[in-house]
């Protein structure tokens, strides 16, 4: 396979994942603003931070309002991580690697772009937001479904999956990092309604507020939330799950190519660390520091994959 094609697949799936996660973030933000009576600019501040675009927002806007934040996250082309920018970039990459995709996968991606372009042509009215967010999630689901149902399990599949999980791990780690302080036992006024809203919003950002109850219990506890999103190998958006998938897909590539790169060692180390450290251990040593290091290692892994498989050079 061409290095450029591997690169295109990797980024196609990173962008689609980012678009979907963007929709979840907005959903969580909306939910918080509905649940609380007082001004909610702080909540949108957190959402913008989770999306990694807080500073960029300030370059475009003078003040922070819910309506502007939603528009910025949803459809502003000045924001390369807005849902629309991501769908466009994902589709652009898909078009570039068209020959590597099944017709079904390409069509699902193209139709997602066609529908979202029409839906997001104008600033969304608040009343339309639930439908828009649903459509984004549904369209992303259709792409995933076509991909899983029709693609050969070969190197094309592996690069696509690696892109998905590097992006997802990054997004989950960011969501946790922005809110890490509400999860610290020392600071949290445990059981206050304020905390409950914050905690639920974290779970909602990764569509895990229902699943949490099945795995733990009805009561939200910071350590359980962190455990769920970091160490729980059954939670499809947890860091541990993402790294299991990354390691397994890199493993297929290693066998197929009969060669390993720096990326293989890095991914295995990260996975081993995720498996061996208990959540209490992580919390005791500093959740924020842990997440910062994770995000930086995850970025480095992306770079190593790009070097090892000649994405650019």
């Amino acid at each position: 396979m061409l290095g450029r094609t591997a690169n295109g697949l990797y980024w196609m799936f990173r962008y689609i994942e980012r678009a979907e996660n963007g929709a979840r973030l907005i959903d969580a933000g909306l939910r918080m603003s509905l649940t609380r009576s007082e001004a909610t600019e702080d909540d949108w501040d957190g959402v913008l931070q989770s999306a990694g675009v807080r500073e960029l927002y300030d370059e475009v806007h003078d003040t922070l309002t819910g309506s502007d934040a939603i528009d910025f996250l949803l459809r502003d082309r000045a924001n390369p991580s807005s849902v629309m920018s991501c769908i466009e970039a994902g589709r652009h990459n898909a078009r570039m690697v068209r020959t590597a995709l099944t017709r079904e996968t390409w069509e699902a991606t193209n139709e997602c772009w066609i529908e979202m372009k029409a839906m997001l042509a104008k600033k969304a009215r608040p009343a339309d937001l639930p439908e828009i967010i649903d459509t984004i999630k549904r369209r992303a689901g259709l792409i995933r479904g076509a991909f899983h149902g029709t693609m050969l399990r070969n190197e094309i599949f592996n690069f696509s999956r690696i892109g998905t999980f590097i992006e997802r791990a990054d997004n989950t780690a960011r969501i946790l990092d922005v809110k890490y302080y509400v999860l610290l036992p020392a600071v949290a006024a445990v059981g206050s309604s304020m905390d409950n809203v914050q905690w639920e919003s974290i779970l909602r950002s990764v569509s895990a507020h229902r699943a949490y109850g099945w795995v733990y219990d009805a009561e939200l506890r910071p350590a359980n939330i962190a455990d769920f999103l970091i160490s729980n190998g059954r939670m499809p958006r947890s860091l541990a799950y993402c790294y299991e998938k990354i390691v397994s897909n890199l493993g297929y590539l290693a066998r197929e190519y009969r060669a390993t790169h720096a990326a293989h060692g890095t991914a295995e180390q990260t996975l081993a660390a995720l498996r061996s450290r208990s959540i209490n251990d992580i919390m005791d040593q500093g959740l924020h520091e842990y997440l910062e290091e994770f995000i930086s290692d995850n970025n480095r892994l992306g770079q190593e994959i790009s070097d090892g498989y000649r994405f650019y050079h």
Partner: protein
Amino acid sequence: MVKNKGTTPLAFDEMMNADSSPRQPYSTYNEWYASQDRIRLIAKSKEAENIFRKTGITFAVYGHADSSEKLIPFDLIPRIISGREWRKLAQGIEQRVIALNAFLDDIYHKQEIVRAGRIPRELIEKNDAFLPQMIGFRPPGGVYTHIVGTDIVRTGEDQFYVLEDNARTPSGVSYMLENRETMMQMFPELFHQNRVRPVENYPYLLRQSLASLAPPGCSGKPRVAVLTPGIYNSAFYEHAFLADMMGVELVEGSDLRVIDGKVKMRTTRGYEAIDVLYRRVDDDFLDPLTFRPDSALGIPGIMDVYRAGNITIANAPGTGISDDKAIYSYMPEIVEFYTGRKPLLENVPTWRCSEPQSLKYVLEHIEELVIKEVHGSGGYGMLVGPTATRKERAIFAEKLKARPGNYIAQPTLSLSTVPILVNKGIAPRHVDLRPYVLVSDKVQIIPGGLTRVALKAGSLVVNSSQGGGTKDTWVLED
């Protein structure tokens, strides 16, 4: 602007006789059509459009920044050619393509046709499409034009003309394939009722044809790739489609590099050699070391690899000299010179404006003629005399006088019509035809091709960039 004047009453309609009975090739189809519900057909037409949009079968129109991807309208009434008509056409096309290759080989070697005084020397040597780098070099198998798209127009029952020989990188073949695919999906019964010759094996034949012309430096199974200028090129969809259907890599210049005397592509495992490159990049951009130094689309040094016999480039660089509009007017002489026979297919009579008496004639008859730029394509830079306004003609006449050598003129042919589906039923529209030809040790003509149709009543401009559409083209087995 091309005005809506209605179809010229004299135009030959390929489906209906003057007495409203169907012509023979259309008789089975016409029965089917008569049994169809018009509303349902119009709904089908919308369905076809959705299939195309969803598949992403689009092209880019240069100069339209915000509408960067457009659909070529598809009309669901097929253009039907009888087996007898096709055999005649195919023989003429084959003769012409053989002559084109012989001409190219001669032009880049002994230039006997120039020595014989049949073509003026300056027409070759002062032509931008003539590449001195090709002099004395013979491509693998002696084939210059691996893929040709011969544009044909029809004006009567037995009257066919060649309008253009596209010998560089003819496009549109993906539409031929997608149109057939769409028709078979929407109206399978039609393919039971009519014996339509298949076109679907084109990608297979193309790959086979390209691989059979691997360079002498190729050991083992030839590795084929399609070279595209990239995602922003107007025909990118087609490049990706063909690579996909052939099962070969779609590469860009930035993927390729000359290493150890071979052209190699950067893969996830390292650099791997390519033996045959089906390039959809113009000559000028192919090699910045040999041609345009500012080209970012090409591969530095590929011409050296080519000349050393380590890669096949299809079509060969420098083939543009054979389909140039000024050379076109000499095609009857060219065919006769190399095949020893009269051309089976006619050329459209052509005035070369570089010749003073022709220029005088053209200026005096501007309202009757179609005037084209020698190097233009896509329907840009042309004047359709009969439908142009007086002002447009006057402006064009000034351009003509300023650079006469830049133009040729042809009579406005009364192109044949085939009906298209409109809201009220069917209405005749002018069409042309581009069959696709593959050249290796043999000449293969795909039975069918791309029928382009002017969607505006009376318009003679079929180019997709100027509002033309396409039709599925059937060649019947008979």
